[in-house]
């Protein structure tokens, strides 16, 4: 599977990671190599196989829909790069 430079740039944009021109070039080769290598899975017939969702069969756990935690806005915002009065301060989102 060859990944071209335009695809690398599209993926980097989806992943929200800025890449330089030099990085785009080297990633083109690196990602292509890795995808070529994983392509060996095509040898495996999985037409009648269910995808794995759990290692051990287990019933989904349920709990009452009640507030179990809260009133800790100061702790929630304590690590923010920028905050004011228990609010996160973020760059302008709407013009």
């Amino acid at each position, binding site marked *: 599977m060859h990944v071209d430079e335009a695809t690398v740039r599209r993926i980097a944009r989806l992943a929200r*990671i800025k890449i330089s021109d030099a990085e785009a070039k080297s990633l083109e080769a690196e990602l292509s190599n890795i995808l070529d*290598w994983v392509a*060996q899975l095509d040898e495996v017939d999985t037409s009648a196989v269910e995808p*794995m969702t759990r290692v051990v069969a287990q019933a989904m756990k349920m709990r009452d829909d009640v507030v179990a935690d809260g009133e800790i806005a100061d702790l929630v915002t304590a690590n923010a790069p920028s905050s004011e009065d228990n609010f996160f301060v973020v760059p302008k989102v709407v013009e």
Partner: protein
Amino acid sequence: MTDLTKFSLAEARDGLAKKSFSARELTDAFITAIEASNGALNAYVLPTPEHARAQAAESDKRIAAGTARALEGLPLGNKDLFATKGIRTTACSKILDDFKPPYESTVGQNLWDAGAVMLGKLNNDEFAMGSSNETSAFGNVVSPWRRLGRDGKRSTDKLVPGGSSGGSSAAVSANLCLAATATDTGGSIRQPAALTGTVGIKPTYGRCSRWGIVAFASSLDQAGPITKTVRDAAIMLKAMASHDPKDTTSVDAPVPDYEAALGKGVKGLRVGIPKEYRVDGMSAEIQKLWDDGIAWLKAAGATIHDISLPHTKYALPAYYIVAPAEASSNLARYDGMRYGMRVTGSNLTDTYELTRAAGFGREVRRRILIGTYVLSAGYYDAYYLKAQKVRTLIKRDFDEAWNFVDVVLTPTTPSPAFAFGEKSGDPLAMYLEDIFTVTVNMAGLPGMSVPAGLSSQGTPLGLQLIGKPFDETTLFQTAQVIEDAAGRFPVPDRWWMKG
């Protein structure tokens, strides 16, 4: 005076119970050793001596009052992937910056509730992505082991301690803690244990809570210990494991007393030898190690059976779809808004992109991009769904094998410890480090590495035991037999303490 850092966890526990030394004395011995060693080995990214001394003082009170708990006063290292309340937790990534969690991981809390003392946070590959501890934002961890040259002297070339739990494996083998926490997504407990002559167990998926552990690939991640002995691993896992309502995948099942199973031996145990693990180019010394393991178990009364796990070769490529896909999703949270670092750009998208480009290292960026690609529109079925179907087949191979055997024996790694830079230039060569360990994560099974011999270069090699789901007990029983036959492998020369 006795060097208290040389004790195993069990020996130190007995010494504290007999009041041969205090928890404070034991803790101080480790704090001194860390101060003298960390410049050379870089195993700790954040030593926490004051925190440790306060915990040790509390332990001494409890011991004096006769109310000691299971791990009372025993100093441990804690991988930096585990959130520690009020203490910097970074997953060894720049993107988390100076993050101080307002909560403790469940596994960590279990250990402190049992009386253990935390000496500090241990180095690891960034977000646990790596097999050599070369991707940490805090720099490489150096293995305390060195190669034996032809002249019979130890070379001064620096070797990797394995990864991603390289700080854990280096600290335990260098006597910088009695035991350490670690995590394993594709081999990150077992491979570093094998490369440093230490014991490591990745329990069954669901045995330990993942709550408060920085997420890498959520369907594969499990916590477990790295220790000096099989007994120590049994003691540690018993304390770490629990059912946790905060992790819906943690299993509500009793945790057995693993230590009690250690003397039971392997008489009548059926041991499987999978032919697919005899990979092309396997070195003669790895083959011999495996043969030695077979001979030891046979001599102890086990029966040996050839088995086939036909989908083994597909485990690694499937892993390199599933793990990056889940990582790209998990790591989307690092956006520079709520915690961690922020690099301000010309608009919001620019800020996200600059922050993530500056905060993530090269290997992490590469995996996020692979994961984003395989999950992107039009590719999900071809990659992620396909890989999850292959996982079903890998698990089915083992389910079939359990009809004939009770435990599976393989080498842990295809080769002994390598030097820095030997594999870091080629992602695929590095990924092959996990060829024997990754199937276990894909099938969710328990796997354990036990030191079993030395390579021709005088560096450690490990054997891996794979068990049925939630049958860690059989792994401990079997591992004890291997340890009894092979002996232990302490680092021969504490070169880093000199000068």
